[in-house]
């Protein structure tokens, strides 16, 4: 951990809201991205981020420096997002189109290329939606955010072997979908 972080954490632990805000500002956009991958839409992701940040603030005294603040906050946010998704899935099904969000076509692409890409994206979005929450989370953390497996294990509070299993299964399912 860099000393600046340590200094900010100590200040935040003594109740300094500015220090906590500074810590949050280093991770916020990335945490929201990760959470969005789980909740499936941005408004929920922002809500979950707020709840997770408040939880982090309220339990900051219990934060030990055995992981970075970033990993710790991400872990809280993932747990929050997974339970949010569980609750939400009881109430309604998540539309497949919402899972990865709409991606704008490039202006230079031809209409056909755009449609083809859109089709592939829809296909992949459907394949992503078929992954379990954990598989999708692990895949997103690894493939999109490039975290190390040991960091993901720390975030999900599980063994590295379990993370590898989820990753293998996610990659296998997505590839199977591509070839089908």
């Amino acid at each position, binding site marked *: 951990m860099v000393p600046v972080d340590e200094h900010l954490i100590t200040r935040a632990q003594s109740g300094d809201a500015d220090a906590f805000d500074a810590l949050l500002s280093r991770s916020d956009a990335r945490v929201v991205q990760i959470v969005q991958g789980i909740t499936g839409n941005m408004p929920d992701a922002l809500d979950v981020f707020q709840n997770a940040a408040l939880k982090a603030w309220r339990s900051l005294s219990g934060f030990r420096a055995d992981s970075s603040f970033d990993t710790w906050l991400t872990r809280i946010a993932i747990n929050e997002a997974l339970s949010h998704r569980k609750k939400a899935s009881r109430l309604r099904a998540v539309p497949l189109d919402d899972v990865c969000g709409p991606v704008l076509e490039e202006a230079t692409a031809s209409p056909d290329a755009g449609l083809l890409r859109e089709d592939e994206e829809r296909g992949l979005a459907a394949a992503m939606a078929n992954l379990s929450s954990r598989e999708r989370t692990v895949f997103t953390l690894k493939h999109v955010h490039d975290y190390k*497996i040991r960091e993901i294990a720390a975030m999900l509070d599980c063994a590295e072997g379990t993370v590898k299993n989820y990753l293998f299964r996610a990659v296998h399912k997505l590839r199977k979908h591509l070839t089908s």
Partner: protein
Amino acid sequence: MNCTHDHDTLVLLYYGELTGPEQAEVRNMIATCASCQAAWQSLEADMNVIDGLVEPVRVDEMDVQRARASVRAEVLADAATTGRARPLHVVRWAASVAAAFLVFAAGWYLGAVDNENKWVDAVLFDANSQQVRIDYVGESESESSLSGSIHDAPMQRELGVILASDIDPVSRMRAARALASARIAPNVNVTNVLSDVLATDGNPVVRLQAVRALHGLFDQRPLPESVRAVLVERVEVDPNTAVRMKAMEILVASEQVSMDMQQTMQRVGSDERENPYIRFMAKRSLERLSGE
């Protein structure tokens, strides 16, 4: 094509998760085995396609700033009500004074109860209004009662005292049942009392209500390590089937993976003398933990 190599390792190679010697070994495997070479090329091609399709979600910086501003407002409000925004040494000093006062107050309070020789006659809870009424009986048969919302800290403390120390198991059971039926947020004091009661109370009905209350508190929330440890222990040793069953249900629902939990699930799942439903839950949990 009699390749028996583990192609999952190729995924780890792709993501740069192998150590130097492991990487050299896998590269050698790709160079010398036609099947592995084909698998590697196919993986690279597929991952290139996936790479082009999976993009990080675009996050509007303004949205994030608004979210952070909202967090900041609550943090400041929190700090104002709890006094957290004061310098650390002042907080520590205040905490020491508060702790000393609490010890004094608790001693005085418990002493007062003993001196008056009152005991709990009934614990009544209305789930709709979330109101509790505790009736006491004195030595002279004079009655008194305490009423209030179960969401109030003093009422929760009173229920905790009954749970932890009342001689009558019916009162303890009712106190636990009130907490099990309440819609309260988890807090350290209630959680600690319930965990202790679950681990040590000799009455199975009281333990059952305590484990139900813990279920209510941590439904859809991550379990603290202390609670998880008590639940794992109960699954293994509690003589009451209903308590073991409930503890197992909470652990399985939590989906929190740990070495001791896996070992417990393996032991319980293969124990022929165990209740079939509990064995089934243990096996299902193991399947989930191993990602089946």
